[in-house]
């Protein structure tokens, strides 16, 4: 079948672009690093004491940041693809079930009131606060959307509850940034627009593990998500255990998004736009959509991060501003150009 070739062709192009973008993003920034220095720093991998300053910048700042960027982009994009497929709805973002607004609230609590609490886990405090917020809000969405009679939650109820709980937590964030003093209030704003400046090897390892694990699991459910495109009942008629599918896909999405958001803040639009771009290119088959979302998500976020670091160099823009400012016009242009939905 010829569309298989198309999918693989897209994957190949995306891989090449991804490698190039990662290379660019470790080379350029506040300080430019030459290719020789990049080569040298890899030679000094096991003997870090021999590293020069630029090599250290590369190994301790640029490289973890670039890799984290790829993982986070992949997480958000795959999360978006999964949620759109599960909710059978093109406007869905991975944060829909409350995950990212909860994370934002958790982090805002940390910024605004963190000093008054005793809890302090060093560099982990913020991710833990954000992740806890994400878990609480997501749990709340599920608990509230469950029907009393049947014990099931219909997808429409889940969607609406998600929107409501999101609004609630975002008003909480608004309140906290209103009562916070200036530096804290700025931190809240900055975090809500996303930033990868805190990337280090610890965050790379944790986000990487959650990303890889969740993507492997989601690929197992890709075929069932395809069947769901025809309808919930129809999917069951084609042998899908709907309850289990919903549970696993939602769980995978929540883990991926909560962990990624906990380290880098709220990055909007990547999860919405990537699956759509790929559907326009190659159609909606989730088996390929998920694979290519990994690549395109990583690619877009890397490019956005590079732009965020270059535009006001040596200062840095929050990455969420770049993803939205560039993503929205491109997305609308494509929607209007290709008769996507009819």
């Amino acid at each position: 079948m010829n569309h298989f070739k198309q999918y693989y062709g897209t994957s190949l192009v995306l891989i090449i672009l991804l490698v190039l973008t990662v290379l660019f993003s470790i080379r350029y920034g506040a300080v430019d690093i030459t290719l020789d220095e990049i080569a040298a720093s890899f030679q000094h991998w096991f003997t870090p004491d021999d590293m020069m300053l630029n090599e250290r910048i590369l190994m301790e700042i640029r490289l973890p940041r670039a890799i984290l960027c790829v993982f986070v982009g992949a997480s958000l994009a795959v999360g978006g693809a999964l949620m759109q497929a599960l909710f059978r709805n093109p406007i869905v973002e991975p944060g829909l079930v409350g995950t990212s607004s909860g994370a934002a609230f958790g982090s805002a609590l940390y910024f605004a009131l963190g000093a008054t609490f005793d809890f302090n886990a060093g560099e982990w405090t913020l991710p833990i606060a954000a992740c806890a917020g994400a878990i609480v809000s997501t749990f709340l969405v599920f608990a509230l959307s469950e029907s009393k009679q049947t014990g099931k939650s219909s997808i429409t109820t889940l969607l609406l509850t998600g929107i409501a709980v999101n609004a609630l937590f975002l008003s909480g964030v608004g309140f906290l940034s209103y009562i916070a003093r200036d530096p804290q209030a700025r931190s809240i704003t900055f975090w809500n627009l996303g930033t990868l400046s805190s990337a280090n090897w610890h965050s790379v390892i944790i986000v990487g593990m959650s990303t890889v694990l969740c993507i492997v699991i989601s690929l197992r459910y890709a075929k069932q998500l395809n069947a769901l495109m025809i309808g919930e009942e129809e999917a069951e008629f084609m042998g899908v255990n709907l309850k289990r599918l919903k549970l696993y896909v939602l769980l995978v999405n929540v883990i991926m998004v909560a962990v990624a958001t906990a380290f880098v803040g709220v990055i909007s639009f990547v999860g919405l736009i990537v699956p759509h771009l790929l559907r326009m290119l190659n159609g909606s088959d989730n088996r390929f959509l998920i694979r290519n979302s990994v690549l395109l998500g990583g690619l877009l976020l890397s490019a956005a991060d590079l732009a965020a670091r270059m535009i006001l160099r040596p200062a840095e823009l929050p990455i969420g501003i770049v993803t939205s400012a560039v993503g929205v016009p491109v997305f609308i242009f494509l929607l209007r150009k290709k008769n996507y939905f009819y």
Partner: protein
Amino acid sequence: MLKAQDITYTIGQKKLLDHVSVTFEPGKLHLIIGPNGAGKSTLIKVLCNQVLPQKGAVYYGNKEVSSFSKLELARIRAVLSQNIELAFPLSVSEVVMMGRYPHFSVKPAEKDRIACEDAMRFFDVLNMADRNYMTLSGGEKQRVHFARVVAQIWYPIENSCRYLILDEPLTFLDVHYQFDFMHKLLDLLQNKDIVIVGVVHDLNLAAKFSDQIVLINKAKILATGSKEKVLTKENIRLAYQLEPVIHTERSAMYLFFE
């Protein structure tokens, strides 16, 4: 053989099915008719294990439906439901291939591809295999789903019948394709291991094509059997509150309404 045994299904105070027992045999065309809200779709749901009746049981062969997993059931039984809407654009061949999903785990085998192609040819949609499903007309979409559900049960299964359950399959079809589809069902029934149960609204189509008619009214089976037995003036008056004129010509039967 597909059998519903003494099914009673209630929601709140309302009985949607009231002690319904009916048997569907392989190689025969069974059509369910009845007025709106009589319980036709509910019976289909019960047969498909989508809802659990408070009383009674459904048997596929000798096995109770609840003893099958969703996947096991999907391998022997295909269902065409009403009003299918796709969430995202897909090509026609991708939609039809979904019918084979219960039969392969990751990649479709050669025989899955052949089944899809043959089913698409059978329903006259092979020429649109690469088209975007969303650009098709209502009737074309319906034929794509015919191909999908028939592809699902394309090959005979060892020690089991194949089951095809159709909930109002003729909606969206013009007269030509309505007749065409009914003839194709009869073709399929040349395979003596296929059980076909369908809900239709057109009494004349039911009279012309069915081997057994099941008339449901007010959650109960009003009559079941041959067209002569079921489509009587009394039954139609009771179910539809209409006075029919029944015209018989050789073995054919035509119904008119004033």
